[in-house]
């Protein structure tokens, strides 16, 4: 067995699993986080996408042991108790998802992109989503949703900046 401890969505989680367990299996079967989906299981479809140490990866292509000691973000960790994440709001507003199976992966790929680049071009969005296959919505609405999410996040960071400046100059 392999002992693993990692931070998942801000919480320390541990398990003892057979070495051949993938990160995806660990998340779904041991941690009961079923947002990441088992699609192709060979790294083509992106339904299992999660963010490990800031980078979007296929959790079906990582052994649980490789994630030991690392930070993992799954779709369950995106919203806070108070509100949806702006990317989720944007996908809801744009109708960017239909059946939703690919959604967790698509949103996390979008998050990885937007964490690096708050002003992505259409080409950059297409590139970031090229590892996430959708068989029902199509990609047009998704690309619009990511553009919309980028706008929401830019507004948010501007508002935070203004707020910080006001605080700093307050007597």
């Amino acid at each position, binding site marked *: 067995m*392999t002992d693993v401890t990692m931070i998942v969505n801000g919480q320390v989680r541990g398990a003892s699993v*057979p*070495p*051949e367990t*993938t990160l995806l299996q660990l998340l779904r079967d041991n941690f009961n986080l079923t947002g990441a989906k088992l699609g192709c*299981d*060979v*790294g*083509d479809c*992106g339904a299992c*996408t999660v963010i490990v140490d800031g*980078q*979007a*990866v*296929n959790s*079906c*292509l*990582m*052994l649980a*042991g*490789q994630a*030991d000691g690392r930070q993992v973000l799954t779709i369950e960790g995106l919203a806070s108790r108070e509100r949806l994440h702006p990317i989720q709001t944007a996908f809801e507003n744009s109708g960017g998802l239909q059946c939703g199976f690919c959604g967790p992966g698509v949103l996390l*790929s979008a998050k*990885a*992109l937007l964490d690096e680049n708050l002003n992505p071009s259409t080409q950059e969005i*297409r*590139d*970031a989503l*090229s*590892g*996430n296959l959708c068989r029902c919505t199509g990609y047009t609405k998704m690309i619009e949703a990511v553009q919309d999410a980028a706008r929401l996040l830019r507004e948010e960071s501007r508002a935070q900046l203004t707020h910080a400046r006001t605080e700093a100059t307050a007597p």
Partner: protein
Amino acid sequence: MKAFGYVSAKDLEHAIALLGEHGAKAKILAGGTDLLVELKHAAHDPEVIVDVSRLRELKDIAVADDGLHIGALVTHSDIMNSPVIRDMFPALVAAAHSIGAMQTRNLGTLGGNLVTCVPSMDSGPALIALDASVTVANAEGQRRMPLAELFVGPRKTSLKPGDLLVDIVIPKDNLGKPAAFEKFGLRKGQALALVNVGASFWVGDNSVFVAPRIALGAVAPTVMRAPKAEAFLDGCKISAEAMAEAGRIAAMEAKPISDFRASADYRRDLVAVLVKRALANAQARATAKEKELVA
């Protein structure tokens, strides 16, 4: 996946010791994007997986006295984001970008792509066109060999049990050599190459090709050079016609097969076009560098 043992190597010394100990019973895990798929399809039945993915010393990109060293565990994303590689070898950035998708590029490593050794690998052609060599370590020590000698056949390298690919070295004399990578797949995203091409040359006095290199992927059991096309270009005046002729010669040298992705004839036609394009892009690169130097 079938059950296997798992051990995570702490450093290079530990990894070499583990590989020496387990020999042919071990499989090396780096990025896992190929190995895990193979394990799921039961292509191998290893007793133990030696996970080398945490070896920091294999993740550096650095210029040393003998050239540019790229650690075997450098990921395709790392290559795309490396200021050194972006400046010196945009061809390697283009090749890295053409592999898989963001998620697989974040995991997959340069060393892994070379060692998996599929004929259509995208990392090979540009590196071969830049005369790259590789460093291999085992219990006896380290050795350096030309990258071309690593490739033996489809999914077959010259590495022996106990060997670990350490880094890829582009020789000092080739730093900044104008080079290009071209690929044609059936889609823009996540497609294997029907043909891919790496090309490089220096622009000599009187605007002639110097040290031209043409490397072709997916048209032979391993990445192959096109020696006749190279010989034709060597010393020849740089022109669009010469590039097109080199493409035609390379197409005759290629040994493609017909499969469900494309016919051999189609692949030959692609070789002619992609070689011409790669040479033209390398020339554009040379011109851009010259302007940079003047400015």
